[in-house]
């Protein structure tokens, strides 16, 4: 068991401190002056000295000198009330001397005795900036997004957020809300999750007894949002025949609860979201044109994760730090792992990345400080399917040709004559191509 010497002239502190240190599994001796501390050091060896800076018969620094002169080599942690002492100690102390600042907490003592960096030290590590308190990323598409959020936040215009599933539409809605109405409510509802029968009641509220099961009066989300923000997720999943009711509210800013007669004035900003593409909105019977123009006064496209791959390490860092905080762990990334994450295809966007990190976190050995990534991130939505021949802007003709040859050879089980026939080239040309791709294996 490690031996700790606690040196402080505040006897109440040494009494309670020693109980805590013992509880943490260390043997502890107490000294209330330099003289007593020296007596202890002469009688037995200590692994760690917790040392008050100001003692009745001198400074804690005198004891450090005494340790050096007598070749005693315990770790020393100075307990100080002055955070400013850090600068002074930096010049004085060697690798075995540290300091902690009063008022102390158990975790300070725990971290210091196990010679781990305390949470306060960890927090000094540069953390990615949380834009508007919730958004992470410094890539050009995100900087453009921040600029749009700032612009629209100054107005009361309704906003429609567009982007693939998992890009963080609700987070962006939160960002808009945080800038403008953070002291007012933000109410979120998913239009795709509401049955046709209940959607009016959810949006506009209902009076008691207005339909079977309406046992009490209920306020709708427009009223509950007050002067704040109403987030209508999956707005394009709302049945078309219900949309005129919504249009009326957007135009008149008044709702009538189901079964009610009194109009209630509403004044919230409506932020809606859809993962449908613009072309789908235009072609399909998904959303009425008049509703679209009311909701999308200011449409914002949220970039997919593939459009901002450089943000993946920042996101990974934030997610891991959140998990560390929730679970009191100290997992870290190494550069190779961040590169693996960056190079992976994330069809489910930030949501998929977050869940993959959570899975890796659960699977990692809690005794190790390094997180363990799985060999593959299998997703049923992955676009790396061999049967798909996705072409992305920026790919070289050589890459496409190589992929085409590979897919064709796969199809004919590596039969080059058959593959050449299918590709419309001679067998010799196919061999020449394969030879040119010297790293190409079938």
């Amino acid at each position, binding site marked *: 068991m490690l031996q700790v010497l606690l040196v402080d002239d*505040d006897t*109440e*502190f040494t009494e*309670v*401190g020693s*109980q*805590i240190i013992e*509880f943490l599994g260390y043997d502890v001796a107490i000294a209330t002056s330099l003289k007593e501390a020296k007596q202890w050091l002469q009688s037995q060896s200590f692994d760690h000295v917790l040392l008050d800076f*100001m003692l009745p018969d001198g400074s804690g620094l005198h004891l450090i000198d005494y340790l050096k002169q007598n070749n005693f080599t315990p770790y020393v942690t100075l307990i100080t*009330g*002055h955070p400013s002492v850090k600068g002074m100690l930096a010049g004085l102390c060697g690798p075995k001397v540290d300091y902690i600042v*009063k*008022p*102390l*907490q*158990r975790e300070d003592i725990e971290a210091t005795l196990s010679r781990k960096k305390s949470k306060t030290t960890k927090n000094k590590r540069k953390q990615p900036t949380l834009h508007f308190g919730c958004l992470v990323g410094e890539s050009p598409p995100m900087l453009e997004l921040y600029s749009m959020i700032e612009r629209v936040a100054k107005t009361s215009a309704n906003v429609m957020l567009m982007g693939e599933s998992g890009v963080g539409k609700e987070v962006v809605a939160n960002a808009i809300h945080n800038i403008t109405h953070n002291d007012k409510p933000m109410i979120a509802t998913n239009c795709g999750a509401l049955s046709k029968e209940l959607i009016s009641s959810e949006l506009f509220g209902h009076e008691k007894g207005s339909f079977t099961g309406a046992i009490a009066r209920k306020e709708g989300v427009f009223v509950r949002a007050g002067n704040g923000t109403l987030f209508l997720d999956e707005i394009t999943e709302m049945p078309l025949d219900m949309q005129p009711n919504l249009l009326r509210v957007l135009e008149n800013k008044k709702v009538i609860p189901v079964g009610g007669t009194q109009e209630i004035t509403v004044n919230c900003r409506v932020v809606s979201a859809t993962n449908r593409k613009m072309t789908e909105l235009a072609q399909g019977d998904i959303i009425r044109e008049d509703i679209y123009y009311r909701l999308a006064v200011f449409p914002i496209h949220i970039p997919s994760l593939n459009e901002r791959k450089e943000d993946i390490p920042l996101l990974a860092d934030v997610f891991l730090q959140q998990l560390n905080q929730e679970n009191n762990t100290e997992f870290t990334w190494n550069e190779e792992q961040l590169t693996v994450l960056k190079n992976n295809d994330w069809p489910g966007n930030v949501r998929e990345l977050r869940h993959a990190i959570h899975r890796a976190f659960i699977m990692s050995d809690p005794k190790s400080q390094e997180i363990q990534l799985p060999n593959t991130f299998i997703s049923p939505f992955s676009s790396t399917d061999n049967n798909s021949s996705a072409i992305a802007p920026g790919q070289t003709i050589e890459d496409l040709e190589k992929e085409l040859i590979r897919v064709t050879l796969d199809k004919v089980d590596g039969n080059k004559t058959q593959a050449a026939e299918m590709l419309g080239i001679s067998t010799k040309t196919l061999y020449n191509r394969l030879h040119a791709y010297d790293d190409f294996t079938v």
Partner: protein
Amino acid sequence: MDIKTNDINTLIHNTRGPLNRISMQAELIKMVLESDMPKEKVLAAADKIIAACQDCSNSLQDISNSVQE
């Protein structure tokens, strides 16, 4: 640093003592509640916290008097 500033720094230092005791006694209470240590320790620690709060208050009054002098 003038004498008055020096005095105030000393008074502030004196305030950190009881604050430190409050923090540590609170940590002890948490430990007692998390473990099977005798629960009487909670009462004793709570009494010491109350006393340290009074010490803190006195120290703050000293700082206030010093500023007004």
